[in-house]
């Protein structure tokens, strides 16, 4: 899988070069450090400065109810911790991906995902993270993580995922 191989390469690169220029993320330069899940190449969960810690200990995602983009108390707590982490680890930026479940048209879900991503972004900004470090993107219903057609899956697909990024090319 492409992402995996990219990740390994990136891991190596990261080890060699410190990231620079975190503020400016050109298209195509953003790297998904979370994608592979359990800390592959991105440090140990036990290291609070590692992306793995961010993804798992803090939680990289918040969930939404049907058609909604408002943040639950739980979601706010998660985002609050994410903001803390980002404030500490300024080498990282983030792209927040908004997603929807498969109920709904493609177009509407794209717009809905954008709303969700934006809700998360606004919250992070309200907790002090610079807006310039946060991008948003919506995948609508194009990238489910759970594939059953039940609420059990839908509820996990209605999400905003904070994906740590770094700019390798500067």
């Amino acid at each position, binding site marked *: 899988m492409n992402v995996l191989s990219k990740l390994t390469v990136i891991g190596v690169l990261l080890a060699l070069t410190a990231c620079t220029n975190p503020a400016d993320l050109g298209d195509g330069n953003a790297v998904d450090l979370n994608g592979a899940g359990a800390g592959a190449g991105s440090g140990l969960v036990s290291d609070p400065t590692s992306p793995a810690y961010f993804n798992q200990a803090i939680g990289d995602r918040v969930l939404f109810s049907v058609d909604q*983009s408002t943040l639950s108390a739980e979601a706010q707590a998660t985002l609050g911790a994410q903001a803390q982490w980002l404030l500490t680890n300024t080498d990282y930026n983030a792209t927040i991906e908004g997603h929807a479940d*498969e*109920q709904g*048209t493609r*177009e509407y879900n794209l717009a*809905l995902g954008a709303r969700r991503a934006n809700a998360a972004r606004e919250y992070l900004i309200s907790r002090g993270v610079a807006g310039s470090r946060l991008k948003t993107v919506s995948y609508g219903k194009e990238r*489910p993580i759970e*594939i059953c057609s039940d609420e059990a899956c839908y509820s996990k697909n209605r999400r905003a995922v904070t994906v740590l990024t770094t700019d390798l090319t500067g």
Partner: protein
Amino acid sequence: MMRFLTSLVLGAALLAGAAQAQNQPLRITIDEGIIEPLPYAAPNFVPDSPAAAEYAAEIARVLADDLTGSGLFREIPSTAYISQVTSFDAPVQFADWKAINAQALITGAVSVSGNRLTVRFRLWDVFAGAELGSGLQFAGTTDGWRRMAHKVADAVYSRITGEGGYFDSRVAFVSESGPKDQRRKRLAIMDYDGANVQYLTDSSSIVLAPRFSPSGDRVLYTSYQGGFPRIHILDVGQVQQRVLQSQDGTMSFAPRFSPDGQTVLFSLAQGGNTDLYAMNIASGQSTRLTSAPSIETAPSYSPDGSRIVFESDRSGTPQLYVMSASGGEATRISFGQGRYGTPVWSPRGDLIAFTKQSKGRFHIGVMRTDGSEERLLTASFLDEGPTWSPNGRVIMFTRETQGASGRAALYSVDISGRNLRPVRTPDGGSDPSWSPLQK
């Protein structure tokens, strides 16, 4: 049934009341009939050589697929024929065709010389014993045999139904493969019947919702190439694409051409809010058409370019609205229970097709442009994204099946709600966009 009966009874009463003079013609009114495919016979076109015979057989197959596939015609199997047609110019034995209840008869000839293929045909009204229209000949290279067959089918279709055909057309769509959570999508284009699939992009980026230009030479689509959804435009002939609309920090999607092909309507999401814009392709100038905190997306022009139908959740749930092409006040047209999306104005201008979600099911439906006379044509776990055939008679759409092994496929349905059928594609397919008839 009931309507028939009431009319029968009514009619009977009327007729009984009207005394008829001796020499008046007898007058009756027929207001109920039957709706069924028209039976026709199409004996293999007469070949002038063995090579031509092979084309004749292939052409017969495509012709039959087109006509019967429309749901409006039924081919009488050749095993039922009483007589054969061995010469294109020989008189037609109408009695033999009447006897097997062929109401239309298609006769033809195929000749091959080098790589030149010539197809001629005539269409007959068997019971009237008369030719419908005049003979028609198509000539070209042998490679074009399939299009020639489609052209014959279009001519037959339009001569009998009175409206244009749709067989010599293409469909742009998204070819899908892989499981739901790792779906690979590629932009593809094919003949309307699934033949001649060509891929226009690889699967390295998500691509969504291609839209044909009114002249059929360009396709708009949304691609994640570069990491964010942006609108691309692709020249079909040259397979050249470029980003049409892009602005940092925004996402653009749901593009659609204006009827003159010079403007693109699209959605732009910015700061979590999605609104409609119109962009002049030549100048790149965009005009904002809506500015509400709600989601406005999936716009589509009326065929005269004066109005736009789109989807908005300003009322709380996604519904359909119509406004002037220059923006301004919008009128809501959907009032049924449920959520409405992806409206598309028919090429004839009289109907709007849409996706409807109600009680956990999805439907493709049509309504008049004022929202009246809503009719649902399909129902399934997930139907969406209608596109109109060039003649406004057939709708193609995406149907996705339920569950972990869910798969997307293309289907078509007549606007009467009859003749639902799958469209064959090599892999899964979604987001069809029907081209105009080819020139």
